């Protein structure tokens, strides 16, 4: 060791794949939460999800006065909280790994005592927390109170609604993990964003053509491509209706694990 390293310093003692993880998490956390980034995202998703759902609540109340049905509330939440957030994730996450590979900051960080697994895990964990908090949890809780206070639906089951939010969070996490994996496979943002987008539309359009697709895609967690016959898992949990199938939930979890494993394996083999 260097002769001039002063005694009081306490060395970092992480072992194995966790080498550098604490500092990487701290760095990512600072980038999100010690800047204006988190509240800008929060305002954006509040405007998109709660703003639009507020309009839906108002439209439903107006329609009820005229003796008509309002817009399908849960379908619309699936659209804003599911589809819109999925596309938001693709945009927000597109540069997470690729941007660092291209700018040279990844090579710089990896020249420190840091494992590549820790690098990927830190990006996954902090971005997931930040995105889920700003686009799922906070807008979801606000929606719960909005529905209870202002809509004819009244107070929904807390457990059911919390379960629905978990399902929406899992759906969002699927896209986070997929985009992160793409970042390790591609060297340009266009590839990272194009594949998940294409996949989303393939799931949507393909569900009508290939019946089995609906069970292995995450789409049905939040958004039903055939709302007249099938409800999304989130909508079923909110309303207390029977769930059409738990298979999409299981397959989504399995795919998330696969995406993360591929991302870590690929990043460990990458050269800088």
């Amino acid at each position, binding site marked *: 060791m*260097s002769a001039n390293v*002063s005694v009081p310093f*306490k060395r*970092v003692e992480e072992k194995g794949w966790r080498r550098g993880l604490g*500092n990487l998490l701290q*760095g990512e956390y600072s980038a999100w939460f010690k800047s204006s980034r988190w509240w800008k995202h929060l305002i954006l998703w509040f405007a998109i999800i709660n703003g639009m759902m507020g309009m839906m609540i108002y439209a439903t109340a107006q329609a009820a006065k005229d003796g008509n049905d309002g817009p399908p509330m849960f379908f619309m939440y699936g659209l804003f909280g599911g589809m819109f957030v999925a596309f938001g994730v693709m945009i927000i996450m597109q540069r997470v790994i690729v941007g660092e590979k291209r700018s040279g900051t990844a*090579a710089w960080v990896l*020249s420190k*005592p840091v494992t590549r697994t820790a690098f990927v895990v830190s990006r996954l964990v902090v971005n997931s927390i930040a995105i889920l908090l700003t686009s799922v949890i906070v807008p979801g809780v606000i929606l719960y109170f909005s529905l209870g206070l202002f809509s004819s639906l009244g107070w929904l089951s807390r457990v059911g609604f919390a379960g629905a939010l978990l399902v929406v969070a899992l759906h969002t996490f699927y896209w986070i993990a997929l985009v992160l994996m793409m970042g390790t496979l591609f060297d340009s943002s266009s590839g990272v964003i194009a594949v998940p987008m294409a996949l989303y539309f393939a799931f949507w359009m393909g569900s009508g053509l290939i019946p089995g697709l609906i069970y292995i895609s995450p789409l049905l967690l939040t958004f039903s491509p055939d709302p007249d016959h099938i409800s999304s898992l989130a909508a079923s949990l909110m309303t207390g209706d029977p769930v059409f199938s738990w298979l999409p939930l299981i397959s989504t979890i399995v795919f998330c694990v696969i995406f993360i494993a591929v991302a870590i394996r690929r990043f460990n083999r990458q050269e800088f």
Partner: protein
Amino acid sequence: MNSNNLVISTENLSRSFGEVHALKSLNLRVPQKSIFAFLGPNGAGKTTTIKLLLGLLKPTSGGGKIFGKDIVHDSVDIRANIGYLPQDPRFYEHMTARQTLEYTARFFYAGPQAEIDKRVNEMIELVGLEGKADRPIKGFSGGERQRLGIAQAEVNHPDLLILDEPAANLDPQGRRDVLDVMSRIRKYATIFYCTHILDDVQRVSDQVAIVNQGELVTQASIEELLAGTGDVIYSVTVRGDTQSAYTQVNRQPWISGIQASQEGGQTYWQVSVTDEAAAEDQLMGLLVSSGLKVSNFGRKAQNLEDVFINIIERSQK
């Protein structure tokens, strides 16, 4: 050289990118507490070597050790005792210089915070960034980024400092500061660095290795290199039909190369000779008999730049 005294040692370290052999069987020996200059023309394999040493690239064949640890399998352990300045330092643009240094320090030290703050301040002072320490890096010039790069490489007081072009982007004052920093650090660390500024190498380095086209051409101390190339250079100024004379003179077996340049109607030759006695006896006569008018003739004192160019030219023959 005793292998216990080596900080870096490579054994046939090779790296190819497809058909391109960027590094061919490099056998490098970097002694402890040395300032080791790793030289070579652009594309010679210098940065590839550094990236292999840091584990950012994996060798195609061969291997190496740093502090006696394997560069492939023990890379993270090795990096715990290394400071690295990349060729084109890139940091997180939203961070300030101070935050960048603290972030870097935290990869090595868990605390205490007061000591980390003290070290960060020392580093800011070391590279002269006091006035800019709390500004986001986004607005930094190339020279300021370079200074920050040096500070972050040194923040953990590493046993080995690897610097890829440390004086690039710096003004003369900054260059001098970097050399001062290197001289101070040598007391407790080994410095392995690449540069194109050969004056700096001659001023501060102990050992030099020269690579060309992925191959190690030579490794020696500065003194050995300046004294032991076997070449003596004659500087001559001539007029006349230099083209035919060039062929005639260059044909001599004791001439290893001629570097020609022109200015103001005169031609300047740097004639490298391998046999000084033969040159003393024959070179002047040879020039005159070739029909040239010689207005200046003399033996030139060698500097590292001459040696470097000679070695590179010879390795390309």
